[in-house]
């Protein structure tokens, strides 16, 4: 006989997961749930886990209520809203012992479908809806709002906050607002009567959100492109990047319409494929516009030939790669950091590209805007490496800011006046010693500064040649240019542990969300790690120095083959044995629990004075 554990009781620190059917209208209600908690001053980390499907397949929404403000996934589920019979068994199994199961009890289920160590909260949602609404669609949509009402009662969420959110959402649509309000109250009243509200898991009002904003990385990156001065966007729809291009269109409608004429200060083309979208970006950038595309792994694969051209002919281009589960079609709606190698060395032959690694939507905005300055300055493609977790999920971030004194850095562009003044123009001439040549825009001058752009070998004056020395001269200059790039890119963020340690940890991108929490937990367990978050490739010198300064270095990343580690080994000449990988690549965002466990298990092997026990790490006295 097993004894049921005590039901979990925690304030502002638990995980709620919604199991829904795709296309059932649950997303709106689930989003309201997360936002209402934010309005109560309590931070949340929310994630949609959705299928590559429009209707019918399972979809989940995970809301981590976390007063401490951690933005990653914790791992585990404390409260399951099980609205999808297809995934029932798996969903029920996922609940942490002592947790809760909320479900639609209209149709009875056999006892074998439940767990003894989980508190079951059944509510006849379908029956309530059927009694209340005659319209089939209303029955489905309002079922979501009714369970939202019930959850507000169970967790002690202030219903007024949800009502305010509804009022904002349905401003000007009073009939809809009223019916949503009624459904909310219906669910709330039913729960207040049927259950002992609030539960041990509950929300209490705090002031821990401040002026932070809730935004997804794709929207933020698109806004970065607006602020970065992009005027041409060419793209091909592909999950999880499509919303970036669509968001750019929507920001531009608001921010880039000529007030006098209503005409557009931007052009967006949905291309026929990714080859065409990168071709358009390259054509536009060659002709002096700031241009970008948004894509994901399969699109990057298709763009390879053009990327080699842009590298070799030295044409600026900005690519937002919202990485997803791969290779091939892979897991289109799941997250990974697995395009590093294919982007770093994209195309045939000796190539190398600039990569930027935003850690959250705010940095998608900042690095998204910066990418255009870097591309123009370096005259080469710049990849902004998002992933699905950053790109498509709403994250709680510091507000976005912009320096109004900033001016676009268009790089080395020779004007008609400079040409008239007799400046020598050689398109591939390294006049400044930094490997970056000067360029002219087409149409600049009637008789000076024109040149022929080609993917074939050329001399310093852009003349076709098949001479070996001219080829080598050009390739060496490109290397010099990438030495310059190293100094211009965002530096890594490096911080020391609370006490001196021979161990360090390196990560990049969305891993940061779980990483910062894991570092705190490891420290609590007595495992101290100096830390470095890499923000760009090619690597700054401080990255090799950090590795050299530590005996043991963990590299945490979300792919199978340890691609960041490979890049570090390859680019910094590091003995692979010095780097220990912590890898996660099942398509879900990496969790604090996983990082902590993996590092703690390994750390006990080499960190003196650290013992290991099942529940974690403790110091051996």
């Amino acid at each position, binding site marked *: 006989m097993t004894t049921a554990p005590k039901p979990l009781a925690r304030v502002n620190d638990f995980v709620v997961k919604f199991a829904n059917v795709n296309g059932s209208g649950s997303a709106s209600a689930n989003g309201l749930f997360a936002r209402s908690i934010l309005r109560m001053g309590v931070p949340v980390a929310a994630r949609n886990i959705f299928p590559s499907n429009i209707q019918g397949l399972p979809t989940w929404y995970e809301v981590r209520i976390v007063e401490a403000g951690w933005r990653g996934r914790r791992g585990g589920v404390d409260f399951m809203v099980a609205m999808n019979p297809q995934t029932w068994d798996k969903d029920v199994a996922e609940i942490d012992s002592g947790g809760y199961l909320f479900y639609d009890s209209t149709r009875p289920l056999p006892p074998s479908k439940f767990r003894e160590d989980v508190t079951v909260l059944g509510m006849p949602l379908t029956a309530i809806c059927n009694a209340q609404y005659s319209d089939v669609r209303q029955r489905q949509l309002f079922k979501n709002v009714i369970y939202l009402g019930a959850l507000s009662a169970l967790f002690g969420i202030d219903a007024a906050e949800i009502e305010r959110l509804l009022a904002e959402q349905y401003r000007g649509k009073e009939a809809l607002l009223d019916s949503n309000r009624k459904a909310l109250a219906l669910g709330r009243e039913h729960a207040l009567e049927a259950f002992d509200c609030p539960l041990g898991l509950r929300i209490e009002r705090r002031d821990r959100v401040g*002026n932070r*904003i*809730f935004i997804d990385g794709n929207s933020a990156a698109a*806004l970065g492109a*607006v*602020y970065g*001065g992009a*005027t*041409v966007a060419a793209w091909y729809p592909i999950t999880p990047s499509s919303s970036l291009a669509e968001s750019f269109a929507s920001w531009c409608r608001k*921010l880039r319409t000529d007030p006098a*004429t*209503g*005409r557009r*200060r*931007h*052009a*967006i*083309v949905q*291309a*026929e494929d990714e*080859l*065409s979208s*990168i*071709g*358009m*970006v*390259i*054509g*536009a950038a*060659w*002709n*002096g*516009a700031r*241009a970008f595309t948004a894509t994901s792994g399969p699109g990057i694969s298709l763009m390879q*030939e*053009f990327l080699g051209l842009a590298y070799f002919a030295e044409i600026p281009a900005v690519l937002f790669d919202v990485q997803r589960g791969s290779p091939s079609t892979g897991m289109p709606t799941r997250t990974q950091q697995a395009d590093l190698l294919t982007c770093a060395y994209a195309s045939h032959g000796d190539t190398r590209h600039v990569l930027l690694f935003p850690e959250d939507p705010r940095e998608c905005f900042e690095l998204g805007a910066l990418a255009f300055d870097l591309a123009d300055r370096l005259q080469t493609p710049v990849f902004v490496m998002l992933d699905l977790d950053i790109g498509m999920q709403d994250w709680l971030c510091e*507000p*976005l*800011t*912009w*320096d*109004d004194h*900033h*001016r*676009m850095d268009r790089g080395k562009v020779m004007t008609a006046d400079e040409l008239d003044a007799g400046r020598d123009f050689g398109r591939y001439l390294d006049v400044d010693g930094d490997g970056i040549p000067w360029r*002219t*825009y*087409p*149409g*600049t001058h*009637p*008789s000076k500064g*024109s*040149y*022929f*752009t*080609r*993917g074939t070998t050329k001399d310093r004056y852009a003349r*076709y*040649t098949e001479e070996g020395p001219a080829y080598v001269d050009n390739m060496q200059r490109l290397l010099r240019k990438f030495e310059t790039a190293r100094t211009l890119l965002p530096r890594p963020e490096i911080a020391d542990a609370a006490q001196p340690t021979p161990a360090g940890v390196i990560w990049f991108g969305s891993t940061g969300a779980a990483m910062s929490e894991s570092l705190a937990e490891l420290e609590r367990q007595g495992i101290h790690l100096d830390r470095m978050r890499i923000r760009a490739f090619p690597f700054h010198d401080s990255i090799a120095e950090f590795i050299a300064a530590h005996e043991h270095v963990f590299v945490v990343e979300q792919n199978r083959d340890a691609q960041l580690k490979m890049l570090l080994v390859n680019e910094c000449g590091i003995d692979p044995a010095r780097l220990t990988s912590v890898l996660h690549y099942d398509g879900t965002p990496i969790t604090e629990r996983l990082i902590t466990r993996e590092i703690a298990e390994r750390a006990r092997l080499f960190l003196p004075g650290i013992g290991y026990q099942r529940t974690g790490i403790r110091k051996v006295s």
Partner: protein
Amino acid sequence: MTYLAKPKLHHPGLPRNALGYTRRDYEGAISTLCAGCGHDSISAAIIQAFFELDIAPHRVAKLSGIGCSSKTPTYFLGSSHGFNSVHGRMPSVLTGAALANRDLIYLGVSGDGDSASIGLGQFAHVLRRGVDMVYIVENNGVYGLTKGQFSATADKGSRSKRGAVNNDEPIDLVLLALALGATFVARGFSGDKAQLVPLIKAAVAHRGAAFIDVISPCVAFNNHPGSTKSYDYVREHNEAVNRLDFMPEREPIGVEYPEGGARDVVLHDGGLLRLRKLDADYDPSDKVRAMSFLEAHRAKGEVVTGLLYLHPDSDDMHAALQTVDAPLNSLSDAELVPGNAALAAINGSLR
């Protein structure tokens, strides 16, 4: 050799156009194509057309893909920026360039391999997008640079120089261009400069996607008996539907009177296109009849040339996208970057 520029010695007596340029100002480097290549005749026609149109060479951007035809932009308009892109992808690069600066003239040069084989997709989409450009395919039915393989425009049953027989149906780019929504569709012959030069001039004046398929015999690999793209075959089977005269706006109209049936069309820039009909049945404004006319003559083994279709009220991609009049590449920080105050308002909407 390409890297040997032609000496820029101007004969003082060379005629000058309205901008003061001589023909030499529209030339490029010395061609490296085979002697007698049809492509060189097309380059000469381009040089003449732009000279006669009084277009400043640096206001033209010339773009190409890969192949013999795509090498030719080096051999004309030496003061224009040129872009020899990747195989079959000139249309997307040209589209991007046209998006960036609507004030330049875009000339895309491609071949049958570049446009009908590897680049068929981009060929299709650039036409249906209405990119304001002149798109010339120098069509010889073979891959020259790789020594004589068939392209997708080679006739079924035709025999290569090495004796291989082509079993695949040919793609007629003119029919395709009509189906895809090109608003100016013509076919020329590299050996008929009198027809080709006005076709190019009219295509430049046209607003929207103008496509010219130019049959251009390959002297090295496809000029033998049995080839429908040889000089002899095309000369014998050329069915020209019309002859064109193109008069830019500033020229007085009506200096020359048509012989027989004629039709005047005013183009967007005010220039006048005078079509002297050679075939009384042919109406270039009727797309459906144009398509059946082409098919009927193709069945008879005839190569129809001339202006085959013209949409006189066409518009271009920029009109569809509602972009501002100023070239996008000329917009300043003030016009593009909304500033911190706008960002503060955005932050407010995200809480």
